[in-house]
């Protein structure tokens, strides 16, 4: 077998192992099912949503849940169930690039800080501390005040404020790995920095980072929905869960089911990803897994 084939085989069996442990944990299994359901329905929205999410139908406005409209309709007769499903697309459209960007920048800065010279480390940590000192929503609102609400503004702001979270974890892990014997040995054999980074540090950092990212998805989804709720995020008529809640908030005294319908997918998403993240952490970090009895 070639090296790549062995590596591939190993990676596959490791993935199998992770899934096995996930499925054995009831919370992990529940999380996995919820996440698959939400991501799946978001991807398949054009095919499974019964109505066009932005099509108005004034005759059917403000209906309660019924056979034709599972979750009722809003004030201009749009089907809430379809809007909920399409809303998942918006949530993912914001969450994925945001987290991918934050992870990428966090990895880069964190590895430089953890491996590089002391002055650079201090500089990057100071940058992290500075960015962290903005309350996320306040910072987002300051930017929105200037450029106006849009999907890209939301992505940009949440990404920038999330970088320190990932960067700090990567930095700590890199620092401790740098001290470990196998890397000292590699360095004494004259291995180049990119090799050490790519072969030794990166694979060891990715596991904890994946856990962190899974746990972070609900935060990002919640922030997007929150900003959209305030009218500072995704603009109507785009069916974001936050927009749905804003519509429901305006009608809270008459038609409570709009708020209920808008909140449920958010709660499910947060529960799903949090359960999944918790279970993943137990699997990825065997130290924690063994923490039952002596």
């Amino acid at each position, binding site marked *: 077998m070639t090296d790549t084939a062995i590596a591939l085989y190993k990676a596959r069996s490791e993935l199998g192992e992770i899934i096995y442990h996930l499925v054995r944990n009831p919370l992990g299994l529940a999380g996995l099912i919820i996440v698959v359901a939400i991501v799946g329905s978001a991807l398949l929205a054009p095919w499974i949503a019964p109505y066009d999410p932005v099509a108005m139908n004034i005759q059917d406005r403000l209906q309660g849940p019924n056979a034709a409209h599972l979750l009722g309709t809003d004030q201009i007769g749009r089907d809430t169930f379809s809007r909920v499903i399409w809303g998942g697309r918006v949530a993912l459209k914001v969450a994925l690039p945001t987290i991918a960007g934050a992870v990428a920048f966090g990895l880069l800065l964190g590895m430089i800080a953890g491996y590089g010279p002391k002055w650079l480390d201090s500089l990057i940590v100071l940058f992290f501390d500075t960015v962290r000192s903005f*309350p996320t929503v306040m910072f987002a609102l300051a930017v929105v005040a200037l450029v106006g609400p849009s999907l890209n503004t939301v992505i940009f702001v949440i990404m920038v404020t999330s970088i320190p979270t990932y960067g700090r974890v990567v930095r700590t892990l890199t620092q401790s790995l740098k001290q470990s014997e196998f890397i000292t040995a590699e360095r004494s054999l004259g291995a180049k920095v990119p090799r050490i980074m790519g072969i030794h540090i990166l694979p060891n950092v990715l596991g904890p980072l994946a856990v962190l990212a899974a746990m972070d998805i609900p935060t990002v989804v919640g922030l997007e929905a929150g900003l959209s709720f305030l009218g500072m995020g995704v603009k109507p008529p785009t069916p974001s869960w936050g927009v749905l809640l804003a519509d429901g908030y305006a009608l809270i005294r008459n038609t409570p089911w709009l708020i209920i319908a808008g909140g449920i997918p958010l709660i499910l998403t947060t529960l799903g990803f949090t359960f999944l993240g918790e279970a993943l952490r137990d699997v990825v970090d065997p130290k924690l897994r063994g923490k039952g009895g002596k």
Partner: protein
Amino acid sequence: MLTYILRRLGLAALITVLAVTLLFLIIHMIPGDPVSTMLGPKASPELRAALEARMGLDKPLPVQIGLFFANMLRGDLGMDVFTNRPVTMIVLGQIPHTLVLILFSILWSALLGIALGCYSAVNRNSFGDRLAGVLSVSVIAVPAFVVSLYSLLIFAVKLQWFPAIGAGEPGAWGDQFHHLILPSLAIGLSWVGYIARLVRASMLEVMGEGHVRTARAFGLPERRITYRYALRLAILPTVTVIGVGMGFLLSAAVFTEIVFSRPGLGKLVIDSITTRNYPVVMGSVLFSTLIFVASTTLADIINAILDPRIRAGK
């Protein structure tokens, strides 16, 4: 101790300066500028130039930043576009509402969270511990504004146990407290879970350390070991997290203030954005950053009081 506090305050000042500078840079990098935000796109060039000159925006960026700091030190954050009142006064007028809300939320959620965490750690793997674990994980990530909306719907609109709007009559303590309950429930709920998990984990770690074994070997009562010897150490990371958490709470407060139509920093920002009152937006963002930096600094100082090793810089 004094050297530690001074050093920590120095760092806080440095971070504040850097944060404000960074805010300036970001605002200059992104498209859109304060003047068109305030005047709208159809303003005449003369009007634009006049406003730019008044706000100092016609000067080079470093000069602008310098001027801003100089003004900030004098407590001058510019004037409200509409009422011509100083922004500092407007923001300071709203801050107490937000602070009361946040502090009350932290207070009840920290107390409950610490108690739950201790219970879970002491009765590890019991039914109660498992139940607390599942509940904690479930509430940790649920967004505060969803909790706000649901509690508004259930307790204010349907059951009408609590008022739905405002902060209560000024001076009427009971009424204000009544208005505080639902919003602080919404903000604090996820923190109960978070703090409970944190306290449980660090309690379990501390209870396994050598000095707890020593205390047991000297026959100290278990209650005293738990609360005097272990909790005192286990609380340290929680204090840090609460300090950092002020940032999240400030964010959560924005939503909650909107949902419950409460006065405060968040409502001020949103109202100012809709009326394009740019100086007030910046002033509020600045003050919330100051509150955040102050709270992380305070948490570090409390930790130094609790832990002699931090004081000594070890």
